[in-house]
């Protein structure tokens, strides 16, 4: 069964269709890339999946279960985690606390144990903190545990968001332009993190503009344009799809993803 299956997904803002009748399936344990020009509807797609937007029409199923229209925290509960295009860490919390906040659903503490701090609750907290530390190391932020997230440079904040999502042990991870605006070194590190995560069995859906990165990593690529799904398939197939070439090259020759080809 596909991890995500999207049928006839339509999202209108007034007259504008941010998404128009999108049909696609994200295979389980795939590394699924979504590409397309700015304003194509990529982030809107993530927002529909994660409950931030209620689709105008259509359905989104997670492991066969309808999730469109569910509140954001319910979708999270079902194992979907995301990062945001414009980084949204908790600025006044330390990096470690940011990651711990991501573990909200994994902690059993209730009101009483939060207030009283029973030995068991405290041991659990310590273990969780140690695990959060490991997730920081995983994304290359080992020494930053105590730094306030708001004081971290941009690229690190992006990676912190990834760690915050991963500690929840999601079954589906949605990354919204994780490598946008970061240095090329960080981009490579990020590609490693994404690849590693995917190999560990997480279904990864990644919006990314860097086509070279997409071609290297993704097992499936979907192309959105003006809210429509232009093509979906293996990277090589999509790259040579005439509609994709036209959408990119026909419009602005120099700004297409494969303009040098």
């Amino acid at each position, binding site marked *: 069964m596909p991890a995500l299956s999207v049928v006839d997904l339509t999202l209108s803002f007034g007259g504008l269709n941010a998404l128009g009748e999108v049909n696609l399936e994200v295979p389980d344990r795939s590394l699924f890339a979504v590409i397309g020009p700015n304003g194509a509807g990529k982030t809107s797609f993530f927002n529909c999946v994660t409950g931030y937007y209620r689709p105008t029409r259509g359905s989104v199923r997670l492991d066969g279960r309808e999730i469109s229209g569910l509140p954001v925290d319910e979708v999270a509960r079902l194992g979907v985690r995301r990062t945001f295009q414009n980084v949204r860490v908790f600025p*006044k919390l330390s990096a*470690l606390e940011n990651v711990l906040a991501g573990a909200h659903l994994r902690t059993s503490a209730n009101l009483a144990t939060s*207030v009283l701090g029973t030995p068991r609750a405290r041991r659990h907290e310590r273990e969780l903190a140690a695990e959060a530390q490991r997730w920081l190391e995983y994304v290359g932020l080992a020494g930053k545990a*105590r730094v306030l997230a708001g004081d971290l440079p941009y690229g690190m904040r992006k990676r912190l968001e990834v760690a915050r999502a991963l500690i929840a042990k999601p079954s589906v991870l949605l990354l919204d332009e994780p490598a946008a605006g970061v240095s090329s070194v960080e981009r490579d590190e990020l590609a490693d993190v994404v690849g590693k995560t995917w190999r560990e069995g997480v279904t990864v859906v990644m919006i990314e503009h860097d086509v070279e990165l997409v071609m290297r990593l993704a097992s499936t690529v979907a192309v959105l344009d003006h809210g429509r799904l232009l093509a979906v398939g293996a990277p090589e197939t999509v790259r040579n799809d005439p509609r994709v070439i036209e959408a990119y090259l026909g419009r602005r020759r120099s700004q297409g993803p494969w303009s040098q080809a």
Partner: protein
Amino acid sequence: MASGSEFAGPVSQRSGPAVALAVIALGALVPVFAGSTYVVSVAMQVEILMCLALGLNFVVGYAGMLDLGFAAFFAIGAYTTGLLSVDLHWPVLTTLPVALLAALAGAVFIGAPTLRLRSDYLAVVTLGFGEIIQNLVNNLSQTGGPEGIYGIPALSIGRFSVTSTAGYYYVFLVLVVLFAAISLRVRRSRLGRAWLAIREDEDTAQAMGIKVRRYKLYAYMAGSVFGSLTGSFYAPAFIAIAPPSFGFSESLLVVMAVSIGGMGSVWGALLGAGVVIAFPEIFRQFAQARLLVFGIVLVVIMVLRPQGVWPEGGLGLARRARPVWAWARGMWVRTRPEKTPEARLGGPVGAPEESK
């Protein structure tokens, strides 16, 4: 690195135990050296405001909501205890559970329907709630109307009964320490992190699976518990209670204490309470002008330190000391004697100089 014990609490909380012990010791000595009951009673007012500020800190500081009617919970505690102990002759301690339940009911009553509102509307609603409670106790004959309730019996614990101002001072000292300890603990728990995440960015908090409205309600409930408990001890401490002590100006004092000190910081809330009470008292001889001066001081604080006097990240002492430390170390390195080759052999291997 012993990352297992690594805890990323703000600086002020890591150095907490030592600071806390010193402050408690100092606090315990106040009645001994005070010299007059007046000083003790002002100190007790500081403690009472500290208790209230720690309660409001859950709502304003941790969860990031505005509440302009916090005195309502203070009133609920004081009046419940006052009524039950005077009319029904219940011992003060036995009134606490009832006062707590009444406060929780109030928190749910005001919170459940309104917590979806954005912050500015919430401010209006809570302001209204504060006014309603004050008007209620002012107009009901059962609560004594404008005269309030008097002849509230002393707090008795076992055979021991607290009758002096100094006695109540210690009662509130215990309460402050208890509230502060709970606040600090909660700050590092799942509950506290959920609150702070909501304060920072509630849409994103929701993506972590945090049920935002439920947790906001918890914040109100936690605040109401502290507020009402404080009221329950306030009643026997002052023997008489009357509506003017529970109005908007009291709510405002609590908000000031929390925001002067630094939103979300326990130490800040305590310090803020001290400033808010002590300043007008110290400058009492200037009569009305002191309030004007106090207002100006508040504005200056807010302009110079919008994050509060003692914000969550600590006072920044460590950060400020760093350049000094670096300079001192540089001096030492430059002035120390050259190491002999033998001494070098004992140093770390892997000559890092080569990379330079």
